[in-house]
């Protein structure tokens, strides 16, 4: 299993993501100006302040040459995880629906939060069970998830809401306490909290490791899925046939 973590000018948590990923597989840093994903099985767009959050968070990073490759990779079913600033980049790139706005309080907040796993069938939550509680730190100033109501309804109906802040844990004003979403196919996931900072009991919780383990599971068993009854299963045939997508090697 090979993870690639993108490094933009201003990325902060790329080495943390690299370390977390290396606990379950191989991991390399990918320079934003390159055009080569180096045959990775999964791409992580990390946290930080790419391009200083100039103009809008993620607005400039989405145009990096490497992001063009990531868009192609994602469209073919490749695994992509956007963490915090990475989530912002993916929304700006329209690889994920919605947008991230300034926290209601307008303040940066760094705090351990409890998350509920809403959809355990995405490529990044397969190692979880629906209803699992994950303790993961969040640290951001622009993390209020927003989309128009009809879009939010659609996301809920399609199982694209992946993680929600547990009751009392949301602090940024996100619509419907949404902490993380996926695309329709479930191969692209974005979340504001930082799973890469929850992989070692010595620094807090190790719940975040499960997201990386989920991806590693996909690489190990590309067409192996679990519960047959979840709504996302309806999209399965398209995924199952994408043998060259998820975990595809180049």
């Amino acid at each position, binding site marked *: 299993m090979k993870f690639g973590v993108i490094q933009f000018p201003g990325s902060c948590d790329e080495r943390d993501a690299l370390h977390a990923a290396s606990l379950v597989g191989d991991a390399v840093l990918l320079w934003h100006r390159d055009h080569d994903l180096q045959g990775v099985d999964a791409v992580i767009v990390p946290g930080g*302040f790419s391009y200083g959050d100039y103009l809008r968070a993620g607005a400039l990073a989405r145009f990096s040459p490497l992001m063009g490759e990531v868009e192609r990779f994602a469209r073919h079913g490749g695994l992509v995880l956007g963490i915090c600033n990475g989530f912002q980049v993916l929304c700006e790139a329209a690889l994920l629906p919605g947008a991230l706005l300034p926290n209601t309080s307008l303040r940066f907040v760094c705090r351990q939060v409890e998350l509920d796993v809403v959809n355990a069938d995405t490529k990044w939550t397969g190692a979880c069970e629906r209803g699992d509680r994950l303790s993961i730190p969040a640290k951001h100033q622009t993390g209020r998830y927003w989309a128009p109501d009809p879009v939010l309804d659609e996301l809920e109906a399609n199982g694209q809401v992946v993680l929600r802040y547990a009751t009392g844990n949301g602090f940024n004003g996100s619509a419907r306490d949404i902490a993380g979403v996926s695309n329709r196919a479930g191969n692209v996931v974005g979340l504001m909290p930082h799973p*890469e*900072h929850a992989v070692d009991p010595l620094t807090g919780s190790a719940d975040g490791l499960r997201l990386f383990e989920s991806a590693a599971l996909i690489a190990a068993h590309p067409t192996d899925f679990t519960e047959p009854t979840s709504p996302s299963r309806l999209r399965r045939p398209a995924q199952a046939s994408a043998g060259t997508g998820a975990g595809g090697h180049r």
Partner: protein
Amino acid sequence: MSRHAELGLTDAEYERIVALMARAPNEVELAIFSLMWSEHCGYKHSRKLLRTLPTEGPRVVMGPGENAGAVDVGNGLACAFKVESHNHPSAVEPFQGAATGVGGILRDVFAVGARPIAILDSLRFGEPGTSPRSRYLLDRTVAGIGHYGNSIGVATVGGEIYFESAYEQNCLVNAMCLGLIETEKLIRSAAAGVGNVVVLFGARTGRDGIGGASVLASAELGGEGASRRPTVQIGDPFEEAKLLECSLELLDRELLVALQDLGAAGLTSASAEMAAKGEVGLDLDVAKVPLRAAGMEPFEIMISESQERMLCVVAPERVEAVLAVCEKWEVNATAIGVVTGSRRLRVLVGDRVVGDLPVPALVDECPAYDLAPAPPAMSPYAAPPRVLADGAAPQETLLALLGSANLASRRPVFEQYDCLVGSRTARRPEQADAAVLMLDADGGRRPALAVSIDGNGRRVACDPYRGAVEAVLECSANLACVGAEPLGLTNCLNFGNPEKPHIAWQLTRAVAGLGDACRALGVPVVGGNVSLYNEGGGGPIHPTPVVGMVGELPDAARAGRLGFAQAGDTVALIAARGWAPSLTGSELAKLRGAAPEGDLPAADLGELRAVHAAVRQAVRSGALRSAHDVAEGGLAVALAECCVAGGLGAEVTVDPAEATLFGEGPGAFVVSGPRGTFAAFGAAATIVGIVGGDELAIAGALSLPLGELTRVHADGLATLLA
């Protein structure tokens, strides 16, 4: 007013300059002297005193005098660290003042080649309850520190904040940074090699902070705060992130002879100091400096304090490689000069020499003044307003203390800082008495560094010698509570006008206390900073020696925590024989409207060193489930803090006398663990109670529900910041 007086130079200093130059200095030269000989750059009133501090030790790999000091942390690694003040700019523009303070200390650390891993900050403001201005300064400085530290991706892991009316007109913002480097790669700043090229890289140069060091730092702040606004520097953490990676890559590739960051007095001090240390000269062509403002004069280019810039010395054959690395990181880089053998700093515009100064005159020959200390006839500090009646019951007293601005939870502040980036943070703010940062695994263990920053100015105001001793002891005690042994210390001396005898007395006595405590504990001073003239119409600040101490612990898995951990655990008080808590200079005395005066308890430094070692050892062995030092607010507050942090009550029996419950003084710790675990402490340990239940009960004194303690502690500062 004469030109030199406008620039802050005395007549005597001017005459000395003329003598050293063997002629009158021109405009450019005078501007350069005014900065190099300012208090901020020249340390005129503190240099002699600082030489009395102990700076050597077996773990010191770089002592004072370089951009940062460094200690050996094992496995071929060194930790470089330093604290610096940015007080005057923060009083004028708190967001940018605090932000650029962080930026500056980061640069000092990566200028020696170390990758920054943590930031801490020590802040002082006036009373937030009654001063909207102090609330504003608190709000904006915290936002500025968060903005810069979070954006550049270095964890802010600790700090301290005190509120006293003495800081109303002169807030303090001291920023500390630690970084890691392979010991053999530490780089120094001495320019060397005649013919080598001087390269300036980083942000373009504008008019930021023109005259900052001389105009702001060495002058008392009068009422014209608003008119000083244009001289404050603006920081760009994104630019610094690129600059950091670029600098570290240049060093990694061994492309540099010397490296220096541009801080106070910009190009002037960077070049003068590099030349002085290397005993060489530098020729700089200011026409080559990339500018961001039009029509800048040569002297402006030399004194600009535009942020995010570094100066390096490069062998000619390596210049192209250096420029290529800078280009990769999208950092401007330009060759602007050469190293000469002349021992002169020459400023040129193209071929034309516009300034020609002898380097030793700028640095080594800067005057160092003797102080004329004399204790004050009466305290220069007013008594604070009384907010608590003398006869208030212990219950009410504890709640008043716990909810006071100086003791309430700092969560509303530290949650604005990213304390996690870098994945090293084993103890976050409010989890333990010191921050704990992990190093790489070593066999089955995870060695770590611990760091604490402390300095109670009000107690130093009571008794400058003992107050300064306490600052050092406080750091050491905090480190002991996580299981760490001190390796080295950095300090920032924040004082009023040293030309006034009573301030000179405060400074002299405080440095003596600092030195004696460091020698007794075996902790060397590896670097630091001095900020003087912190006074305005309302009088001087409290004498505030801020101490930042770094220590090591063998295994982060055994790092101590401050909160009670398990119902049924025994609570013990570990106390030195000489522990003599008193209300003098205490938070309770302040609530009762007492002015800061009176002698603080004496400290038996030898005994305290042994007690700290015993606590440290007990934490390391895993014998204790919690350890917390008794400090501001006294024993009752410490017990309450242990309950709140652990989410557990306790039932405790101690001498219910007021001095025991609320008195302050070094040498006591509240610890908890399984019964029988305190044997190693011998007579120093007294079993005082048991963890459990949902209230804190101190027999014969008070009983308060945990929920109420938690709420009062959580809300104290939060309501002021809302």
